[in-house]
């Protein structure tokens, strides 16, 4: 055994010394797929002879955790991922260093979202819009019409056909949920989200699981970031995609890690990403993200969406990053406790309410209508207000701050019990309404 260890150690020493002997190695940790990183690697190494891009693939959370755990002896130059909140976490722990890019022609905002971190620690290099993706064969087989707007997905015809990633584990879904909450207000926003959620088939744990399920035809419709749908379509899957008339735009980001071993190389890669050559790589059919340099769209195919001109991207409400940040954990936990872990009960009520609506459409009944409305209000009820969600007593439970009123686990149990009770009552009312309406 000792011999094996000794041999293994000697061998690995030899290998690692070869690796560090190379000059110009830029190490990037990323959540992007090989299809995204490979074309960039190729173009970058061509543009900067002598440079090599070493790509470490990790999911976003693992990447953040990795940088945090290894900070004492950091070997990573760059963090490259979509979710801005992951960069916020790194920034909050001072694990990113500021950089002022030299690239020109890049505006301050895409839609109404600032492209770069105001603090200058991470920079947007591409944009993505949120939308609805569906499997054509699935829709035809189940005779479902194509959806156009978010509200459409709450209709009875889409019951049990929609998938989404959990906001607690997908930074981009979190932004969508937060956008709805800020756009419609706390109470009404949650009502909308729960109405959509009543039709969910699945709440997945990875962003990519949603397009994967739609590609396979296991789920008909997915709420996804545009490039997932574009690249699936480019690969030949029978899927379609539409932006609703109000969509969120999310920048994808890159940031230089604090104490980067190859700082010059890291800066070179950032500049390359933001240069016209680097921006054009985004148009690659396997990548299909939206460049943040408006000039690059001149080289894009005709049907390529342009967030700088397309009015749908301009309508998005002003998004307050501070509000979002102050209650991130609260919103995610609420979503999980009220929706993800109660999905069966929520769907059960929703199904009955759809049946009530169908019955009422044939023969109206005032009493049933009132009961159904009461049931809907019970489903929409929230255990706390917007003010409470950002208050120190509540957020303190998640960070462990001194001001906390209760422990996180206690809050979760309260919220779950609150939702369970309301959903049970709502189910009773909805069933009564159905009896009357029939």
């Amino acid at each position: 055994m000792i011999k094996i260890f000794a041999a293994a150690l000697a061998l690995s020493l030899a290998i690692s010394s070869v690796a560090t002997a190379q000059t110009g190695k830029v190490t990037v940790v990323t959540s992007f797929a090989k299809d995204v990183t490979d074309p960039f690697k190729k173009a970058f190494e061509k543009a900067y002879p002598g440079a090599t891009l070493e790509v470490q693939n990790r999911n976003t959370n693992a990447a953040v955790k990795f940088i945090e755990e290894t900070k004492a002896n950091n070997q990573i130059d760059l963090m490259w991922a979509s979710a801005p909140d992951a960069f916020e976490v790194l920034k909050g722990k001072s694990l990113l260093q500021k950089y002022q890019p030299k690239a020109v022609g890049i505006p301050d905002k895409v839609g109404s979202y600032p492209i770069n971190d105001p603090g200058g620690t991470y920079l947007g290099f591409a944009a993505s819009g949120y939308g609805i993706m569906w499997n054509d064969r699935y829709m035809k087989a189940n005779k479902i019409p194509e959806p156009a707007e978010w509200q459409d997905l709450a209709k009875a015809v889409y019951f049990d056909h929609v998938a989404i990633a959990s906001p607690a584990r997908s930074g981009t879904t979190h932004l969508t949920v937060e956008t709805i909450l800020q756009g419609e207000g706390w109470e009404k926003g949650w009502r909308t989200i729960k109405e959509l959620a009543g039709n969910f088939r699945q709440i997945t744990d990875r962003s990519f699981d949603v397009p994967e399920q739609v590609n396979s035809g296991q789920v008909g419709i997915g709420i996804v970031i545009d490039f997932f749908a574009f690249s699936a379509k480019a690969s030949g899957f029978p899927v379609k995609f539409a932006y609703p008339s109000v969509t969120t735009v999310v920048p994808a980001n890159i940031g230089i890690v604090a104490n980067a071993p190859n700082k010059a190389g890291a800066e070179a890669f950032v500049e390359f990403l933001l240069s016209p050559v680097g921006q054009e790589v985004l148009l690659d059919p396997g990548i299909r993200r939206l460049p943040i340099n408006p000039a690059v769209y001149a080289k894009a195919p005709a049907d390529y969406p342009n967030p700088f001109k397309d009015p749908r991207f301009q309508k998005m409400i002003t998004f307050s990053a501070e509000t979002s940040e102050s209650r991130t954990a609260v919103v995610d936990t609420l979503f999980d406790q009220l929706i993800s872990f109660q999905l069966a009960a929520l769907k059960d009520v929703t199904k009955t309410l759809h049946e009530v609506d169908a019955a009422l459409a044939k023969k109206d009944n005032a009493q049933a209508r009132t009961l159904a409305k009461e049931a809907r209000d019970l489903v929409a009820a929230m255990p706390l207000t917007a003010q409470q969600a950002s208050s120190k007593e509540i957020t303190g439970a998640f960070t462990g701050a001194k001001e906390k009123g209760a422990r996180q686990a206690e809050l979760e149990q309260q919220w779950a019990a609150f939702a369970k009770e309301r959903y049970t009552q709502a189910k009773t009312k909805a069933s009564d309404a159905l009896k009357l309406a029939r």
Partner: protein
Amino acid sequence: MTLALGARRGAPATTRGQRALAVAIGLFLFAFLVLPTATVVFVAFTEKGTGQFTLVNFVDFFRTDLFVRSFWNSVYVSVMSVVWASALALPLAILTTRFAFRGAVLIQTLGFVPLVMPPFVGAVAMQLLFGRNGSVNLLLDDAFGFKIPFMEGLNGVIFVQSLHYFPFILVNLSASLRNIDRAMEEAAQNLGSSGFRLIRRIVVPLAMPGFVAGASLVFVKVFDDLATPLLLNVKEMLAPQAYLRVSSIGIADPMGYVISVVLIVVSVAAMWISALALKDRDYATVQRGGGGLARRSLTGWESALGYAVVIGILLLVLSPHIALFLLSIATIWSFSPLPDAYTLAHYNRVFAESSLYIKNTLVYASIAGLIDVVIGTAIAYLVLRTKLVGRQWLDWAAMAALAVPGVVLGIGYLRTFYGISLPDGTPLAALWITIVLALAIRRLPYALRACTAALQQISIALEEAAENLGATKARTVRRVVVPLMTGGLLAGFVTSFSTAAVELSATLMLVQSNSDAPLAYGLYVFMQSSNGRGPGAALGIIAVLLVTVCTLVSHWIVERRHEGAGNR
């Protein structure tokens, strides 16, 4: 740890070598399992924010309906999975070991393959076959207008887990059956026992160590597995709850680690109970080399029935791999019983890179398997053959590895070993040997159970005889014990090796350059985009083939040894 305290109370005194071995293994487990895990899991015992010691988090655990419900769901699913996995494994094990059955080696090998399910891509293949709109349900719906919810709810989890983990029982039970002394059976027959009574009174009791080893592995593995429930969208089980918490960015939350602690405690308890079940009974038989049970020949229709059963079971348990193969040669497969068209392009695409991945996988998995067998044998020997105080703790500590989520172990390794720099400045955790150690620790329980079962069947009288003839303890182990354990050792190695070859969760945390990456990592990288599905499946098939070939070779070696022994 407790092991340093050697026993000195009368009875057979322990030798210095045994104590040194126990200390060495204790240190190994401490450095590469206990310490890294503790650096992460200690959060469970602290108050959030202040970091003070508290047990209130455990109180919260039992006060939260969701966790309590998840706990009982996990227990239910694990027990039922053991039942169904046994139902699948028993016919295969008995037919291939008790009867003269053509193709026994092939059946044993194929029966083993389900254990090797590459991450992510295996899930996709499974959905395409058994999912709500998978091939089977699309065909059923077309022909009869109904669907079967194979992959829904807790029963779906039980279905998939039984298919996935039944090889644990098959491998260990077969090894046990092979080790039963033919003389026992013949003695029973001479005394007038035959047929079902013979099986019930002689074969079943003597094969118990192997069955219990396999069943306890299935129970603990299903209890701790998070991939399958998540794939089926079942969140109300314990392991997924831990994962969902640990993997969210709010990583400082103690509840995820509280669940991890509960998982570890339950796993160790399950092992303890299974050890109790075998305690105070003697499973050893003195005579060896009888070639196991007598192989009966089957009459024509019996043999036809046998083949029908075997082929039926194999088709069922291998169906995910058949789907995986189809996926790897499919252009597009979406909402249809079969792919639209076929191509070899995916294999072309992965061909250039896969040789590096294959090499790394072979190196990592075989070193890890080797470490596991060596340590597994040593622990089994210390537990069963010595009176060292605290020897059971070695066994339980090693088994606890099953319950430590891969991501926790990965983070623990970074925390423990990243600060240690080599002379040239690279951190210790950046070396590939760290990946190997993580794999070895994660797969040690498999090898350990196999080694323990093998040793339980060897009569101590053989060792005493050797020692009476003047052999030292070490020589006895080398010349008598290990050779007699070969079958079990190989079963252990194969299980550790092949499951290490497709491990991802800890690997993903530890891989630091593409040149050090194993197959599973390459697969993960592909499986992040729609375009990478085919190539991912191709890599998955390569991994499965790799493991199958290695398994086939080791089965072949075991069979040959047995035949040789039987003819002597």
